[in-house]
């Protein structure tokens, strides 16, 4: 059709070259990422094997941490339990708050307030965790004793709130610090998705006579579900990987207990941070083995979240 077929061919070939370069870049980065992930897993396994061999008791059930002792003995289950418990509690607190903050900045606050508010939330996401840890230690721990005591007094019949004393440095306190750290990231990501809700979905809700909250429930939240889940997964990652803030706030031991108002338990990450310096060769291997468990937990959580987002995501953002 064109009078300059050679020029057209040339054009098309350049375009194809662009495609090829981009495809190589994309596939290359994807592959590199997989290789790095696999390398980390292999490294963790190799480093952990000597310690796992030296372990004389079952590393999954022992409730103490003495890898360099004779016999060598270290329990990872208690750590994994502590990590998961504090992180889940943190999410339980932070997700509703974060979604509320996200809705406030995306749909409720007047424009002059919404922008600065969203900006502050983004800023909070960048605050180093040691700052949150210090806040937890100096402010939260002393001030949480009173509410903890009332919780125990009125709800003590629920196992979670059973307690044999009054403590500030508890699982509860650690979870609150983790929640505060997770809120900014969850709310920032939720907000980004909320504001992308297609206008015709929002108008569909208005047009059938929805109030504002009903509009949010029928249009914004279903569309934003994937964003809430992604944000929650990242928040979980931040909480379960946190070292210094937990180490500062929690008075650690190697118990497995659901009594969140009591001190005790520890998390994998905090344990690695506090123990690595003093550890001998086997001790380091033991810590790395616990790191491997942390790695596996986060993988499981990520895949679980993918499955949830993937299922029934038609029409939502993903």
């Amino acid at each position: 059709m064109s009078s300059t077929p050679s020029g057209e061919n040339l054009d098309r070939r350049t375009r194809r070259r662009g495609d090829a370069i981009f495809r190589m870049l994309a596939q290359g980065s994807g592959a590199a990422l997989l290789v790095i992930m696999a390398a980390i897993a292999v490294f963790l396994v190799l480093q952990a094997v000597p310690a796992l061999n030296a372990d004389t008791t079952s590393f999954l059930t022992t409730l103490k941490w003495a890898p360099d002792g004779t016999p060598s003995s270290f329990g990872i289950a208690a750590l994994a339990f502590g990590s998961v418990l504090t992180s889940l509690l943190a999410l339980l607190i932070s997700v509703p708050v974060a979604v509320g903050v996200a809705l406030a900045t995306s749909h409720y606050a007047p424009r002059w307030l919404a922008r600065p508010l969203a900006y502050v939330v983004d800023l909070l996401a960048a605050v180093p965790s040691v700052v949150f840890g210090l806040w937890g230690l100096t402010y939260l721990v002393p001030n949480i004793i009173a509410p903890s005591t009332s919780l125990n007094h009125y709800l003590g019949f629920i196992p979670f709130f059973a307690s044999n004393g009054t403590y500030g440095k508890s699982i509860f306190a650690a979870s609150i610090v983790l929640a505060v750290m997770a809120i900014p990231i969850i709310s920032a990501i939720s907000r980004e998705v909320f504001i992308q809700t297609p206008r015709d979905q929002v108008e569909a809700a208005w047009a059938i006579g929805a109030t504002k909250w009903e509009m949010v429930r029928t249009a914004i939240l279903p569309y934003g579900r994937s964003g809430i889940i992604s944000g929650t997964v990242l928040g979980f990652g931040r909480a379960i990987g946190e070292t210094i803030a937990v180490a500062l706030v929690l008075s650690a031991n190697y118990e497995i207990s659901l009594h969140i108002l009591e001190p005790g338990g520890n998390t994998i990450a905090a344990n690695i941070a506090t123990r690595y310096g003093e550890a001998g060769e086997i001790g380091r291997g033991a810590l790395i083995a616990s790191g491997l468990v942390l790695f596996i937990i986060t993988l499981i959580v990520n895949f679980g979240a993918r499955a949830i987002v993937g299922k029934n995501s038609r029409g939502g953002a993903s």
Partner: protein
Amino acid sequence: MAKNVQMKDVDIYYGKFHAVQGVNLSVPPRAVTAFIGPSGCGKSTVLRTINRMHEVIPGARVEGRVELDGEDIYRPGVDPVEVRRAVGMVFQRPNPFPTMSIRDNVVAGLKLQRVNDKAQLNEVTERSLRAANLWNEVKDRLGKPGGSLSGGQQQRLCIARAIAVQPDVLLMDEPCSALDPISTLAIEDLIGKLKQDYTIVIVTHNMQQAARVSDRTGFFNLLAVDKPGRLVELDDTEKIFSNPTEKATEDYISGRFG
């Protein structure tokens, strides 16, 4: 049911922008009134004042009176949510709630009105889907998501959703412009059927469609470039297309501009 719509000296603004000026009109019940005119002259804007959807845009406001059977819907104290429950709307792009089931889409408005009786919801679902000529195509998959239907089916689902609450007025903003010719025909047939029960106001950029489906036609135009839109004339469709009063209308329908 099927109320008439009156506008008296209606001016419509988006912030400082004066979009539409001085509209006076009367829309009869149980008939189809079409709004035609070049794009950007304010047809959608006028339509969206009838269910108070205009004001969901920040800064948007309306002056003048808009009445349903004589009752001013902009009177202080009127709840826009109640107005929207009485005046249904169908949009240009089909917009069912994509993850909600077909059944839940149809009764979404009823559920907002706290109707929870299973039998009643089922009955309304069937009645509305039948009225929207969609029942036979979806009756075996009412639990499937609304997003799983074709574009034409989605638009009929949206019509079913709008009429499920038995509104006084049904507004349609270019309901066929995103659809193929066969789906368009299906919707036009449906409009002809629905006008027995409802007051219908439809915006269309397609003059043949206006001629086919409407009893009354209003022609909108801009006063001039950068001036507000206005209603040039509103009359029986037959008259508008054969012997309009205004020269601008005649120029438009004979294709001399727009």
